[in-house]
């Protein structure tokens, strides 16, 4: 868990696991809002870059949430 995208993917998936039990739509909303509120821009930029590179390792809710967030940005 030292290289940066791995760690951010792990963190994003952790957030996803909390919201997962609320159902897909609310989870996507909750995850994107959480990342927008608490992640500094360089972290968001890195995870977006990872998303553009295919988003390997991101859980489905998280993938959708990040895509939504990226469109808003």
């Amino acid at each position, binding site marked *: 868990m030292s290289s*940066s995208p791995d760690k951010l993917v792990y963190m994003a998936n952790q957030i996803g696991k909390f919201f997962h039990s609320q159902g897909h739509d609310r989870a996507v909303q909750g995850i994107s809002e*959480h990342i927008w509120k608490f992640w500094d821009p360089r*972290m968001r930029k890195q995870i977006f870059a990872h998303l553009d590179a295919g988003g390997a390792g991101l859980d489905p809710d998280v993938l959708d949430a990040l895509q939504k967030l990226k469109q808003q940005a």
Partner: protein
Amino acid sequence: MSLIQETDFGTPKSKSETMVTLIIDGNQITVPEGTSIMRAAMEAGTQIPKLCATDMVDAFGSCRLCLVEIEGRAGTPASCTTPVMPGLVVHTQSERLRKLRKGVMELYISDHPLDCLTCAANGDCELQDMAGAVGLRDVRYGYEGENHVFAKSHGCENDNWMPKDESNPYFTYDPSKCIVCSRCVRACEEVQGTFALTISGRGFDSRVSPGMSESFLGSECVSCGACVQACPTATLTEKSVIEIGQPEHSVVTTCAYCGVGCAFKAEMRGEEVVRMVPWKNGKANRGHSCVKGRFAWGYTTHKERILKPMIRERIEDPWQEVSWDEAFNFAAVKFKGIQQRYGRDAVGGITSSRCTNEETYLVQKLIRGGFGNNNVDTCARVCHSPTGYGLSQTFGTSAGTQDFDSVEDTDVVMIIGANPASAHPVFASRLKKRLRQGARLIVLDPRRTEMVESPHVKALHLPLMPGTNVAVVTALAHVIVTEGLVNESFVRERCDWSEFEEWAAFVAQEKYSPEATAIMTGVDPNDLREAARIYATGGNGAIYYGLGVTEHSQGSTTVIAIANLAMATGNIGRPGVGVNPLRGQNNVQGSCDMGSFPHELPGYRHISGDAVREQFEAMWNVKLNKEPGLRIPNMFDAAIEGTFMGLYVQGEDILQSDPNTKHVVAALSAMECVIVHDLFLNETANYAHVFLPGSTFLEKDGTFTNAERRIQRVRKVMTPRNGYADWEVTILLAKAMGFEMHYNHPSEIMDEIAALTPTFTGVSYARLDELGSVQWPCNEKAPEGTPIMHIGGFVRGKGKFIVTEYVATDERTGPRYPLLLTTGRILSQYNVGAQTRRTENVVWHAEDRLEIHPHDAEQRGVRDGDWVRLASRAGETTLRAEITDRVAPGVVYTTFHHPDTQANVITTDFSDWATNCPEYKVTAVQISPSNGPSDWQKAYDEQARHSRRIAPVVEAAE
């Protein structure tokens, strides 16, 4: 200034609302029913002579000095044990009473040394005062007979005489001066709740005895000082008073240790502290204290304190002492250079939860306004950030709901992942008092803590496996919902009903039942069901929790689960109930309130909000960045990555306190400029380039906010030894960096905070002086503050139930690391120990020990006291083992107070999903016998020694 004299009313205040009128010495007096005649007289200004009575403990009626006459009643009853009755006519002085009292005093003095001039209590002796009050002029009995006063009688050893017990580092017990009033024994029982003292023997043989005639240090005594405070003679006396003499003035201030926030009188002689005495009007502590606040303030004058600023180019270089200006300029040039090379966001800072609100506010202002980014965080990140997140989501405020007085109305106390007896001792004493009155106690903790084992306290202990909090709290909810124990009218009125229904359906699933989850949690399902029933139906239920809840991968989820539980049972919004985070450090609450988090401005308002940001921009006259900044763990990652190169750390030792030490070392080593602003060369300073000497709480003005949201004054009693209070240092550093802040006194900083923060609009130093303290929110709606929150409705509107799925941490045991390590605190030490290790408190805890169950120890060939190697996936260290069944098989425990152990070499990078609060409380480890320090410890020690060198000052030649 003079010495604050607190009135001793002799017996405790009655809480009755029924009033009783009687006549004392011809004056009509009205007092609450249940008041003693002694207290009623004192309230009217008449002090009846007394020795065994004091208002911190119940009346005892042993000294026979407080006798009075009551018309129509025979004899001379003791006024301390006689309650008032309507229409009583009482006389406190008569010929008969005068003779009786003189006779009693004569007997006392006939067995008491007459060394008053050289006695440490000279000037503060109730025995001497009473001898004066009753007009004692002669002791007819002489000193020839049997006595406790002289080592020898008639040339022979006197078996009744006992030498002084000086075993406690802070106070002395001199049995020859004891009058056996039992005040110390009763203070130990009633106020502290430890029951360490007793009276052994009977009649003339009666003696105060710690335990079974042990020394004070060797007994169960926790050195809280309540007995010393209660003693009317020089029998129990602070060693500092013996050494210095009686104080001449005193100033009320607030303790700088834990989140209880005890109010103390700093009793002074000039600028020298003689002693710290708990203040009875302090609303957090009500006149009680613990060994840290009462006695462990000697670090202020410790020889290792650094008093001059220092700089160096590289951390391999020795420190070079310089003037303040040189240090500020050096730091400013470095930080500006970093921002030029790496960008505006490449620097940041950490505010201190030990410094004042005003100082914390200035540091975040410097970062947001001066550095131009929001890379500010605070140690709450690593302790209670999940509390902030969880409670704001569910209730709408990032703070506990009650005041400490609330515990007096509690019927069921549930403690989750906290050990107040060690970490919040004064609150624990208040809690134990309520438990002895009959309130019930449920403890969720992997370890059998001191709370579980308190004398005269019966606890229902649920020893869960570390990391399974969410499963256990959800199982409690399962029982409450499926057994029909929900307080439906409360939920319908105060909470969102559809969210509740969704939550109730979720927790009611069979897979969340105590029986289904027992295999993971290790908790007996019957005990868990009983705990849920008691909490839901036992009357006022209050939850108190600590870092055992927050410092997990699912810390925020557990806080939410706790909030759900309180809402479902209607345990919110009145005295005796609530959800109460026990805050670790003195000003954790305050540092959070003051905008220390990277995503929010003071008052918990998100940085992206234009309206709020514009208010601050107008006041500070600077444009603010609207993007959230880095949190502490993110700063470390960014440093290793090369995008975060400069850090200003005020009053915090991140290297010792933060998890995965090797990772922190790598991050700090990667930075180009680390500024440490502290009292001592702490562990973080080993990697610093600028050291700015800090000031102690005795040397500055300001405020702290405790765990009850109580804002209390910190008052300066001596000149800062380093030259500047910390708020002044931050202002000067900011100035060197080109960001001007103008304040003449911390009160002006508080005025600015009040102008910008809706929950603080009513707070000012004048208001604090007037009311003593105030709990936020304090504004037009609540001009005297808010002791209890969410009365009649939640701050966010409707209370929000959120489902809490248990997700096991990824830190798992396995064949290589089969045990789970959890960490905690011990009474005598505080946090990283920077302060307490530099006091006599080390006699109780000179090193961190590893608690291990006898079964696990035997399997590994470990005996009590052996050195053991403690290894995790992150690192390894060595320390000595303590074999105990306080921990369950499979679980080991240690404290983190000592840098030579470095418990955080072991802890991992895992953190709370919502806030990145590190998972200190669960680490998979293996234990094996060891011969001594690990290679890491040796290398670390070598680096630390090397890094702490200070270059000798070269005098210019004439």
